[in-house]
């Protein structure tokens, strides 16, 4: 297997970087000697389920430490309690399954997120209101979280990542479960977010990457198969669409081959030995 060690944006200081990291879940290797750098802007982590995207995000969020290798965030090694705490104040995280407390109002929940991120008490209300305004949820600040639609919840999810004015935001499959219209709006929101801070977004939808990301890294079976711009990804040799015809109709005709892997129709399809290996 080939592991790419090039940074995603040559010439700019990466906001986050992992170097030679390996993570195992028992006998399963989730990440195998992965090295990646994440510059400013929006970086997409593209790969099928089980590729190691969420594990990589958990490393970047400092929720997990690698068995081997190093994680550098915002210019610091992510190790040691004090340093980890300092880093976490500057990171925003939206997990794939975004849980919330339904009885909290939108504002209360965002303030609670600010408390979790150790935003100073005097600034919490102001930051929460500002974050909600950025995601256009300020007019719903007094509504209960349990009364919000899926799209609104995602917006609050983005707001809570921004409440500490982070330098790095990690989004794990942020568009899953949204209808097409909501997804379009949400992509626009992520692009705006990327203008304020570095964003790393995992997805298994090539379409998300195409619309949102400046850079993309393709993961497969715990290894990095490609890093570069979306244009570079699209310039790779194309393959036929999947035999079963599954895929996102909006992205038809975008299939490309990455190290023997076809990226098409919004999904990754494995070819030959890669499929057997996974």
């Amino acid at each position, binding site marked *: 297997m080939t592991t790419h060690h090039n940074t995603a944006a040559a010439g700019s200081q990466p906001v986050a970087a992992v170097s030679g990291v390996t993570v195992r879940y028992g006998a399963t290797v989730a990440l195998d000697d992965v090295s990646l750098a994440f510059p400013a802007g929006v970086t997409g982590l593209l790969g099928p389920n089980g590729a190691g995207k969420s594990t990589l995000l*958990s490393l970047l*969020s*400092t*929720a*997990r*430490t690698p068995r081997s290798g190093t994680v550098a965030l915002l210019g610091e090694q992510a190790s040691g*309690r004090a340093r*980890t*705490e*300092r880093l*976490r*104040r500057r*990171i925003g*995280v*939206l*997990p794939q*399954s*975004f*849980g*919330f*407390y*339904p*009885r*909290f109002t939108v504002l*209360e929940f965002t*303030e*609670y997120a600010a*408390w*979790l*991120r*150790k935003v100073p*008490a005097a600034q*919490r*209300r102001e930051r929460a209101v500002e974050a909600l305004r950025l995601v256009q949820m300020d007019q719903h600040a007094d509504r209960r979280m349990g009364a919000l639609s899926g799209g609104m919840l995602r917006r609050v999810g983005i707001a809570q990542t921004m409440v*500490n004015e982070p330098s790095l935001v990690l989004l794990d499959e942020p568009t899953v479960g949204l209808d097409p219209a909501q997804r379009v709006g949400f992509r626009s929101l992520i692009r705006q977010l990327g203008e304020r801070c570095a964003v790393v977004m995992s997805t298994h939808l090539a379409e998300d990457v195409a619309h949102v990301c400046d850079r993309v890294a393709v993961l497969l079976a715990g290894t990095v198969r490609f890093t570069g711009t979306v244009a570079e990804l699209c310039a790779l040799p194309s393959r036929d669409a999947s035999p079963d015809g599954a895929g996102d109709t909006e992205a038809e005709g975008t299939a490309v081959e990455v190290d023997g892997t076809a990226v098409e129709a919004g999904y990754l399809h494995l070819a030959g030995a890669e499929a057997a290996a996974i």
Partner: protein
Amino acid sequence: MRVLLTEMRRGEAKWAAALMGAVGVYYFTAESPGQSDWIGWWTQTSLQVQLFSVIVMGSVMSAAAAWGAGRAFRHRTRPWADTAARGGWAQAFLLWLAAWLWSLIAYALFVVIAFSRTAGVSDVTEPAWTPLLLGASMMGLQTALGVAVGSALPSRVIAPFAGIFWYGLFVVVAFVPGTPLDKLFPAIDEFWSSEFAPNTTRMLTAVAWCLALGLLLLALPALRRRATLAPRPVALAALALVALVAGGALVAFRTPAPDSYWAVRKAQPAHPLCAGSGGTTLCLWPEDRHLLPRARAAVRTVDARLGTLGGLNRSFYAAGLDRPAGDTAELSVMSPGESETDLTEAMLSAALPQPASPDCAPHILRESGGYPDTFLFEAVVRDRVGAPGDYFGEEFGRALGRVTRAPRAVQDVWIERAAERIRACEPVPPLPR
């Protein structure tokens, strides 16, 4: 502060506290001062509030806290919250503080009601705070266990078991004496009359133990989760040290029987409150000033009834008061609401002489049907003062009649001599013919 208020407003603990508040208000208002063994005594009032709050409210609030803490599982917020700069310990602390504050609000309500009731009876104002402090910290420990259980175990049915655990523990403590559990997990169910005061040092030690252990319990779930920021080892070590020293001290403390583990005897008052009439005197603790009018009336009644009978105790001292040697007796004031009748009856009982030695074996009187001779003596005295006692059968009645049908002078001599003999642990004189 705002986050804490949000937690308090949105958490489930408020419903449990409201329910317990309602139950507690009923409990502390329903009791009649005349029947109560606490309304009128400040320390006993504090104990009563502490006992109800720890056993009943603390158990329920522990379950409520466990349910509240389980929200991270129910609402799947753990993956998100565990990436926060505030670790799991701080998050658990917030939940605990919110639930505990609700407990303390209800607790404060109970204190206000109970103290008001005591203030309405007592003529002094001497609230005892350390039992209340101990109760508050014990509820803190109970709530902390609930939060720890709810945070650690992803089960919806575990919450009630936190409450059941505490209630069961107090039942075990009540039925299995001699374990250190009652020292480490205090719910003081004792009767302290005016002679006792809280053992402040011991209670403050227990407060430190409860709070340190509670805070340590809150840290346990965070220690198990790798994703969340680990508690600071220095803070954990400091709390563990406090818990170890305080808990060890509580277990190591020993008390001379029969004193309570949690109480000490009060110093003797400079001037006990005494009511006298004729040759009869009753002295009370100053805290029982409210009993003085009833005591005066009771003393007059007893003095009139005992008349000139010799050999009986005529000076009565409330339990714990130093009393001079001679014909004096200890009087147990069993309730702060003792009536004149209660005090009269207590003095009449205490008027009967007792053997000087506690090892004195009873002397069986064959003529009375095989009952101890002190039974007959009491019956004779009661007959003389017009307060007949229990019926012990015909043979006993015949023996009683041999004394009571004798001339007054003969009776008086027999009673006086019998009293002397009882004090000397000797059989009473032969019955008059």
